[in-house]
């Protein structure tokens, strides 16, 4: 039966190419949509996930990263006085206006932190260093946004708010989910860039590092008993809340998931149509097999083997195409992630999709009247 399945499948090369095209199209569409979804979700919580903090303390009611509200730094001292806390740092983020050297204005998201203290720092610094941010009026930006921000090299000068700023380094691959690129600065400078009237004794977040051997959950509980008017999240909780906000309350996630679902539906339809057409072309052969005494189970196996062959070959091609697209996306504004778990999941999905597509044909073959073999 294996031989018949393969020969019938590969015999009509044009039809088989159409089948493979349908599978590749569907899988690549799904990979891109899910990859974008993963990329987006990772992007939204990037600063949290790389913060090296065990706990994030925010003003009560602040449910995600991008809506900060400041509060007194007194809370910082309460935190530092709590047993089990190794370190705690102020951290802020706020939207600002970036004036390019050519005078054009861009919206940015300024991140303020204390350089050199190991909490909330940017990562993947490819030019300059985090320590350079200790210099006055200095900022770090991501090289992805060089063009958008109108800067090319270290030393380029711009204005943020009405304050002078100088690029002292570049990071690589730190994307912003919003259209406003992240700009990293020392805490005090970040206040000057975004809200010069703000007092330095306030903060938008407190990042906490638990002492060795202290469970973040336990520390979270202790801090909750001491602090008022704030919410305390573990890093994972705050990351999850931020991702959930952007993906499911803004509709962005629904859009990409819907597109992925559409890919799946289109894929099943295309593959079902081509497998069905191939089955109908060979319908007399299936009738002959039945007359020869083949059971329905035997016929299912022929069709399912064809579906699995289609799935595996289509998957292989789709992976090649998807890798090109994923690699290209690394240089663009929207990253597409394809972890190995997704690659493995896609193989399972491809097989399930093709078998589902073959069900229409299986149903048809089951109903063949073997007496058809005697008709001309």
């Amino acid at each position, binding site marked *: *039966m294996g*031989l*018949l399945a393969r*020969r*019938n499948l590969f*015999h009509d090369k044009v039809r088989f190419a159409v089948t493979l095209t349908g599978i590749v199209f569907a899988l690549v569409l799904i990979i891109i949509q899910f990859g974008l979804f993963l990329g987006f979700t990772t992007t939204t919580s990037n600063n949290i996930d790389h913060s090296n903090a065990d706990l994030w303390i925010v003003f009560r009611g602040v449910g995600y990263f991008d809506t900060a509200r400041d509060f007194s730094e007194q809370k910082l001292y309460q935190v530092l006085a709590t047993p089990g806390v190794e370190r705690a740092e102020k951290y802020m983020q706020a939207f600002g206006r970036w004036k390019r050297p050519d005078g054009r204005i861009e919206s940015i998201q300024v991140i303020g932190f204390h350089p050199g203290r190991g909490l909330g720092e940017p990562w993947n610094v490819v030019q300059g260093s985090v320590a350079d941010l200790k210099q006055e009026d200095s900022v770090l930006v991501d090289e992805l946004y060089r063009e958008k921000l109108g800067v090319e090299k270290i030393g380029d000068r711009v204005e943020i708010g009405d304050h002078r700023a100088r690029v002292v380094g570049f990071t690589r691959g730190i994307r912003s989910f919003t259209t406003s690129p992240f700009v990293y600065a020392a805490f005090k400078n970040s206040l000057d860039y975004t809200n010069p009237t703000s007092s330095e004794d306030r903060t938008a977040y407190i990042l906490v590092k638990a002492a060795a051997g202290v469970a973040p959950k336990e520390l979270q509980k202790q801090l909750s008993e001491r602090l008022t008017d704030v919410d305390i999240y573990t890093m994972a909780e705050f990351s999850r809340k931020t991702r959930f906000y952007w993906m499911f309350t803004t509709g962005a996630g629904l859009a990409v998931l819907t597109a992925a679902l559409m890919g799946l539906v289109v894929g099943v339809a295309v593959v079902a149509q081509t497998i069905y057409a191939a089955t109908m072309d060979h319908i*007399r*052969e299936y009738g*002959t*097999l*039945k*007359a*020869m*005494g*083949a*059971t329905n189970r*035997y016929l299912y196996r022929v069709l399912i083997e064809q579906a699995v062959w289609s799935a595996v070959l289509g998957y292989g091609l789709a992976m090649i195409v998807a890798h090109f697209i994923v690699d290209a996306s690394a240089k663009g504004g929207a990253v597409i992630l394809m972890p190995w778990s997704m690659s493995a999941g896609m193989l399972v999905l491809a097989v399930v999709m093709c078998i589902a597509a073959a069900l229409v044909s299986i149903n048809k073959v089951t109903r063949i*009247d*073997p*007496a058809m*073999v*005697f*008709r*001309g």
Partner: protein
Amino acid sequence: MRQVHSKQVIRAKGLSKIYREGAAEFRALQSVDLDVHAGELTLMMGPSGSGKTTLLSILGCILRASDGRLEILGEDVGSLPEGELPRIRREAIGFVFQAFNLFPTLTAAENVALALDVRGIRGPVAQKRGEELLAEVGLAQKARSFPADLSGGQKQRVAIARALAGDPPILLADEPTAALDSTSGRTVIELLQRLAHEHGRAVVMVTHDPRVLLFGDRIVHLEDGRIVKEKRNVQTRRDETSSFGEAPMAAGLSNQFSI
């Protein structure tokens, strides 16, 4: 010398088949009685719509009779559930079709091996048996040819080899010579006759082809779903001097066939 095989392999009693479409009803077969014996080549003749193919389909267990009793090798197939019929077809029956019904994407040997595969025989055993069967029908050298590269007669011989894959005691053939020229047709009918006479199989063949009349041991004539005439060939072997291409029509055979 022809071997004597008197074993009854098919016993049909009162077979009827009614096709219904809405209120309309068509009686394709009406109370047909037929016994088929091993070692005999039985020809079923009759005009179009007389019920020959319906009867062949019922005898082949691919169509159920509306009424009557059918025994294949002593087993009452009418009482078997639908799912058991493929087993009867695998174990007892081989089919030969007018249009050959070979699998175009498989070679001659693979076509035969597929019939073995359906019976759970695979690998080198199936390959060897496939080649043996092709040798039996005189096509050993065409084992690796695809159907498109074979003549009509060769295709039909591959189909016969395939029908023999399960070593069935019964061969049912639906107009196997209709699409063939006289030489190929003669080769095929001689092969079917040999399978009956020398191998002891019961061969039932639906035909319109007057050229094959002399080869049958028995002629069953159907009209309007009934067996209206049954003749038996008085000769034990066909006349070696008769020509396949010049065989007389049934009407002129009274001196050679007895009722």
